[in-house]
């Protein structure tokens, strides 16, 4: 929050609206969109294009993190969480000029919920709400859920509204831009939607920009060079060393937004079927062992050395950037090797000379895998290696190419510990059901359990179901707070740091309000503008 305030003070010029709109914004994306169908978008480039081109009934404001009316001018959720009634905004038109009707909403909802489409948001909604009925009546749409659905309005943020008779989803859109052209491997051009419904405070039609050019550029070094040459206007997710360099450039506008919603974490493989020695599985299942590892790691060194100060030590599973849901009672674990050793002794571990041994005399050593080529993770692993050697643990670090790593952590389960990052795209705890339920495939330390392996996992299961069906925000928060406390105590995931959101903005772009939620710089794309005076100066 502090960072947001600082940024708001630092960017008065950027917030000034343009006298005349127009211009093209240039930006790079790190991969090819897999599809222009917003319902099947599952990776960042597709999600970005979907965000810029499609409209939703209710949008979570990326700055306030609160739901706001968009295509629906109002909504009402029933007390039992089984009904959501939405009233559509009048006179909204698709990019092809057709009027938005309640039938389009039901069409879109039924489409995304169709199991044959395999839409990620649709699958999650079906899992949480069971069968969903949609009734269209004039400008009113009523959604009925088989099971009580907490914060039903937030689910609407992930359901793009499509025209029922348009055929291809990209032909008729409700977002500020339309896809004008897509040159695979090169770029996409998004053109201003002439029928976009939103206007600014002065009554001017949005968006201000004529177009956005998204260059497909996988090499981040080239992206930075092109930004420095003025060929690109915005960069997100900067590495700390690049950020430091851009910050030092005179007139540079490298901005630090604060802790992101993402986390770097490590975990031990506790799966019963994993091909690891039984005595090691026993270590990994020991709460004292996991807590001692967590207590031995110097997160402040990771922040200082690996992230050059541009990260925040992680206390728990929710980033402090998630203002509504973080449990502020969960505190950071201060590094304390002596306390860690004392904790290990309570579970039969003993330090003999420089080597930690378990109660059977086995030397404590294990291998941690991480993805090759990720410099930050490899460095973090090296720091952990030295931290653990202080309590007599020998750590081997193995870097694997990403497909091999995913194969090991999801299918063969042939690994001991893993260091990886988690993208925090969803603020709401419902977005993490597929991690915290013991039956979930992404319950990484022991996935797909038929029944909870431990009492604390059973309690988490119960709390997650409870929060997903509770209608009051306070009840949901209480349940989610308890989950965070259990995770901090049991340490199935050892959270290390939250990287800070680092971005850079060309001085020619106005209206930018960087936020920690994705898309960090384009969430208010309809209000971005090219500062024509500066752009002319630069072109001269």
């Amino acid at each position: 929050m502090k960072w947001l305030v600082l940024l708001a003070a630092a960017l008065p010029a950027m917030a000034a609206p343009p006298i005349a709109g127009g211009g093209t914004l240039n930006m790079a994306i790190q991969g090819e969109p897999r599809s222009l169908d917003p319902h099947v978008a599952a990776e960042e480039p597709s999600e970005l294009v979907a965000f810029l081109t499609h409209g939703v009934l209710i949008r979570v404001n990326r700055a306030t993190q609160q739901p706001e009316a968009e295509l629906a001018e109002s909504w009402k959720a029933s007390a039992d969480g089984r009904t959501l009634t939405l009233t559509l905004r009048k006179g909204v038109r698709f990019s092809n000029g057709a009027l938005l009707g309640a039938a389009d909403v039901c069409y879109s909802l039924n489409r995304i919920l169709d199991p044959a489409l395999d839409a990620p948001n649709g699958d999650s909604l079906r899992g949480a709400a069971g069968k969903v009925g949609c009734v269209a009546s004039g400008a009113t749409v009523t959604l009925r859920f088989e099971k009580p659905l907490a914060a039903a309005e937030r689910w609407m943020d992930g359901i793009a509204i499509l025209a029922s008779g348009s055929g291809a989803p990209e032909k008729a859109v409700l977002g500020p831009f339309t896809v004008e052209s897509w040159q695979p491997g090169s770029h996409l051009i998004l053109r201003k939607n002439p029928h976009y419904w939103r206007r600014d405070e002065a009554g001017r039609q949005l968006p201000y920009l004529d177009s956005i050019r998204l260059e497909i550029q996988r090499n981040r070094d080239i992206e930075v060079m092109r930004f420095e040459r003025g060929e690109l206007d915005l960069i997100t997710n900067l590495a700390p060393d690049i950020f430091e360099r851009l910050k030092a450039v005179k007139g540079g506008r490298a901005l630090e937004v604060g802790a992101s919603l993402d986390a770097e974490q490590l975990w031990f493989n506790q799966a019963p079927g994993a091909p690891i020695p039984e005595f090691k599985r026993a270590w990994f299942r020991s709460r004292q062992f996991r807590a001692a590892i967590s207590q031995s790691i110097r997160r402040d060194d990771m922040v200082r050395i690996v992230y050059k100060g541009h990260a925040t030590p992680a206390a728990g599973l929710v980033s402090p950037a998630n203002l509504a849901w973080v449990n502020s009672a969960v505190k950071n674990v201060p590094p304390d090797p002596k306390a860690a050793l004392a904790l290990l002794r309570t579970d039969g571990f003993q330090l003999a000379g420089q080597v930690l041994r378990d109660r059977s005399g086995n030397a404590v050593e294990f291998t941690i895998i991480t993805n090759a080529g990720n410099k930050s993770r490899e460095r973090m692993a090296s720091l952990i290696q030295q931290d653990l050697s202080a309590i007599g643990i020998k750590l081997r670090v193995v870097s694997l190419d990403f497909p091999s790593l995913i194969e090991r952590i999801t299918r063969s389960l042939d690994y001991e510990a893993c260091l990886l990052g988690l993208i925090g795209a969803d603020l709401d705890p419902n977005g993490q059901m597929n991690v915290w339920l013991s039956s979930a495939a992404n319950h990484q330390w022991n996935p797909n359990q038929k029944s909870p392996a431990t009492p604390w996992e059973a309690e988490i299961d119960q709390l997650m179901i409870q929060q997903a069906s509770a209608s009051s925000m306070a009840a949901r928060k209480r349940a989610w707070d308890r989950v965070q406390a259990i995770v901090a105590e049991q340490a199935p995931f050892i959270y290390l740091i939250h990287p800070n959101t680092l971005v850079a903005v060309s001085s020619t772009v106005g209206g930018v309000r960087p936020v920690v939620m994705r898309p960090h710089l384009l969430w208010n794309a309809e209000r971005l503008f090219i500062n024509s005076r500066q752009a002319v100066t630069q072109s001269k």
Partner: protein
Amino acid sequence: MRHTVSLGRMVRSVCLFALALVYAAALGAGVLAPHPPTIQFREQIAAPPSAGFPLGTDELGRDRLSRLLHGCRVSLALAPAAAAFAVALGALLGGVAALSRGWIRAALSASSDLTLALPWFFLLVSLRAVLPMDLDPAASLAITFFLLGALGWAGPSKVIQAGVVQALQSDHVLAARARGAGFGRILMSHVAPALLPVASGQFVSMVPVFLIAEANLGLLGLGVSESTASLGNLLKELEPAAAFGPAFVLNSWWLLGAPLLLLIVTACLFCLSTKEVNS
């Protein structure tokens, strides 16, 4: 001509002496290195050269000189071993191909063509992924070089096959046959000595290839684990040069000066030795 030969010999002597110095430094890493190569001095991150750290420290605060010496030991010991293995395998299979007829020769020829066409990098990445996780870093490195050697036999095999065929058709072998010399004797006394310079040349030219291959794998984070010092891992520090440009080079000359220079010089020393052997 005499001047050319004596100059060549002098160059070779200098190269061998310089190589010996490099190897001596690498082998004496345990004594010469001021610090253990993996110890992090966390208050001395990316420090410039000083009395305590003659080549400065890296981004985790590890002494660069110590890592360079230990990294050399690993890379300079294993690259020649891999080259020797590749040449021995190539000599065996090339020799068999030259002496055989019919499907054996065709099969060996097809195998060497296939090996030359293989995308060895992807093969190495895939093979590394199936190795046991609890493998010691030194063993992992040795296996990486073994695989490099095992994949490098095809080139020497082709050259040696051609050498054997040429030697068998030479006048002195015909003369030996006419005198009634047996096949074994011809091989040992006439063919093998003729192949020795060819095999030596192949060996010496493959060492820098394997040194650079390990550096390539290291640059991509797929060689040995980050904490183990090897030339490949040390060269990883140069990655930012692509993005940071000349300023990075000027501000960080001590980064570039050590591992890159050593790799280039060592590769050149091996290549110059090769020239002399071939001549």
